[in-house]
């Protein structure tokens, strides 16, 4: 067990999977010679050569289409799109082709590809380079969508995604790349030990949520970077105020592990959802609907959502920070959910 960054976990996992399976190829803008805009693919061109690490032109629709075709014919392409914002150019390929081919052509061909791309704001990249489109992809039957929050899940879910026979949209987050966490089998010597074989059970099955922390007073649900914020807030409130908050990292948006969400809220009767995407029609809306359907009789307060302000994300730093959901928003919302259901009445008042 070693501590590595999210970035390192992705890098090492790609390396391992490429060594394990010669059908795994990488495609994307500047991933070879330049080693990737976020250095996830550093050193891979050198080891695997230009047949397996393919620098593409700036033409997302074209190279995503090429990856779909390659996947149909037996390769396992892992496409990197520099940020999710540019993946919109390839949306037709993903929605109308990758997601439909297995279904529409009578199961003759599967599409075992992965589309890796980072979401998220907070880097002063302005309105068109700071977005989250998780809910757009998660909306599409035929796609699988994962959004890991921790280095260990980044590794486990990337392995699962590469080995899955269906198209998987693998959503990273710009602000997570430098976060660190424990990952079994990585980081033991000199920062990386990618030569070591990862036990099969370190693969995280797609479609399972993670209970990051158990608790009994309130369920806090997040995905991607907001799960990390949620966990920090839950730990802080436990220490400072003795609150027992259960934190669930959804991590797989489609298929969604509804059972884990519902069971948790049945236990706690209160739920707050935090998401970095916009409030209206966001992933949080689906999570809230799922919970109220499955745990209606157990809710003692309305389900609350904390989300990004519904504006194009500003460039100016203070405004950008003001628009993004933050720990303090979450603390306030948790407090209102607890107040609404008499938590304080039973304890401190």
């Amino acid at each position, binding site marked *: 067990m070693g501590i590595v960054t999210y970035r390192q976990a992705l890098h090492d996992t790609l390396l391992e999977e490429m060594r394990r399976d010669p059908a795994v190829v990488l495609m994307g803008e500047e991933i070879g010679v330049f080693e990737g805009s976020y250095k996830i693919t550093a050193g891979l061109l050198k080891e695997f050569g230009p047949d397996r690490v393919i620098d593409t032109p700036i033409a997302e629709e074209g190279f995503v289409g090429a990856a779909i075709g390659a996947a149909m014919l037996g390769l396992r392409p892992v496409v990197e799109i520099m940020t999710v914002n540019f993946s919109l150019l390839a949306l037709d390929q993903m929605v109308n082709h990758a997601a439909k081919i297995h279904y529409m052509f009578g199961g003759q061909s599967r599409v075992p590809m992965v589309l890796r791309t980072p979401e998220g704001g907070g880097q002063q990249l302005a309105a068109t380079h700071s977005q989250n489109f998780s809910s757009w992809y998660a909306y599409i039957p035929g796609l699988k969508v994962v959004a890991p929050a921790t280095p260990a899940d980044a590794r486990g879910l990337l392995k699962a995604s590469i080995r899955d026979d269906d198209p998987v949209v693998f959503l990273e987050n710009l602000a997570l790349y430098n976060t660190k966490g424990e990952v079994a089998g990585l980081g033991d010597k000199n920062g990386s030990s990618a030569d070591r074989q990862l036990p099969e059970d370190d693969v995280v099955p797609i479609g399972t949520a993670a209970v990051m922390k158990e608790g009994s007073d309130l369920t806090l649900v997040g995905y991607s970077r907001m799960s990390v914020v949620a966990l920090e807030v839950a730990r802080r409130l436990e220490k400072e105020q003795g609150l027992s908050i259960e934190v669930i990292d959804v991590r797989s948006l489609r298929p969604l592990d509804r059972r884990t969400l519902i069971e948790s809220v049945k236990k706690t009767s209160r739920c707050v959802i935090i998401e970095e995407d916009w409030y209206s029609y966001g992933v949080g809306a689906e999570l809230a609907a799922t919970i109220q359907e499955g745990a209606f009789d157990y809710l003692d307060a309305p389900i609350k959502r904390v*989300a990004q*302000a519904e504006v194009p994300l500003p460039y100016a730093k203070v405004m950008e920070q003001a628009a993004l959901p933050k720990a303090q928003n979450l603390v306030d919302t948790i407090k209102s959910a607890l107040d609404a259901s008499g938590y304080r009445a039973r304890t401190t008042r």
Partner: protein
Amino acid sequence: MAEVTMPRLSDTMEEGTIASWLKKPGEQVNKGDVIAQIETDKATMDLTAFEAGTLQEILAPEGTTVPIGQPVARIGSGSAGSKSGSATAERSAPRPAVAPSPPAEASAPPAAEETGPNTEEARENVAEAAEPTESPSRQDQRPTTAEPPAQSAEAANGKVRASPMARHIAAEHGLDLSRISGSGPQGRVIRADVEAALSAPSAQPPQPAAAAPAPPAAGGDDERVALSQMRRTIARRMAESTRTVPHFFLTTTVDATEMASLRKQINEQMADDGIKITFNDMVVKGVALAIRKVPEVNVSFAEDSVLKHKRVHIGVAVATERGLIVPVVRDVDQKSIGQVARETRDLAERANSGRLQPPDYTGGTFTVSNLGMFGVEQFNAVINPPEAAILAVGAITREPTERDGQIVVRDHMKLTLSVDHRALDGAIGARYLQALKAILEKPMLLLV
């Protein structure tokens, strides 16, 4: 001037019919007077005035059916038909403690959703503003003989504002939410309030003294008869049950000879004490004891989960002149058979006279339906949702049977269990019937 609205008198009630007006327009009304009788889906109940004054106008004549919350009459301080400003002013003076939503919330601009970061709060204000604001005058129209609590969760439309969790717990325990004061936002009843009410000794509402009048006369031959509220509820619930609950049926024959002899002994011995045990009482008690042996049947199917009931509340189907109703004997497993008999008789009498209150017929976990007294030998009963099973009890018949190599005549009783297959499988139903049969064939067990 105060509006009297159709109150919500039971959990399942959606509308009520004015059975009769006991006051006429122009008559003086005192606080607490019964001004009308309302026929609900379950019973006929009193509508009590919470304002003193003059009954000015009847908005819903006798026989009309009105949804919950809709005004049925006006009470003012002047004479009938008076709509003077002074009357209005006077009426509005003694406002009850419940305040309407603060104006700031009510007027939160819908535009809030387009601005500002993390706008949950603004959103909530918008959502709450969209709900009907509390009308103080309507607050007083709750149909109870008690003073309204200082803060009530009842909204202007007559619906109680309560969290789903609170409703769930209240329903389990047969509590009337409108009698619980809410401490959540806008008086919402939350779990903590229901739990507090449950632990308070006076949680159960007092029984009203007034008896309901005889039900309206039935129509003649070949006439179209409008459905009573009760008939309507039976129709809706039974259709819903057969439509959504996959039933299966298990029948067994119980040798009731010893039951008959035990019953005879008890009734002979206890005749002076006025205790009379029926076969049905024995079955009800046996059903509860068998649930203790096979608690898996004491459940409710809840779509994505199964609710396991820890307490054993047995519904006893009672055929009244007005239709079927299922009053509930609570904690039957904990009570002596004599007590079960007494309570069942009391509930049946009150069911027949339409005097059951919601706590009397809600919260059951298993139902017993008995047509034995009509000579029906065996039948399949329709499950009473959300319960998972119902037992149909047939008549006791004398049957020749083989016993120790001899043909003897014994008392037989056929029991048929209807089971919700979503919640339970055949084997559990069968095990339950087996346990029940064992208890009823050794009926001394009912006395332990």
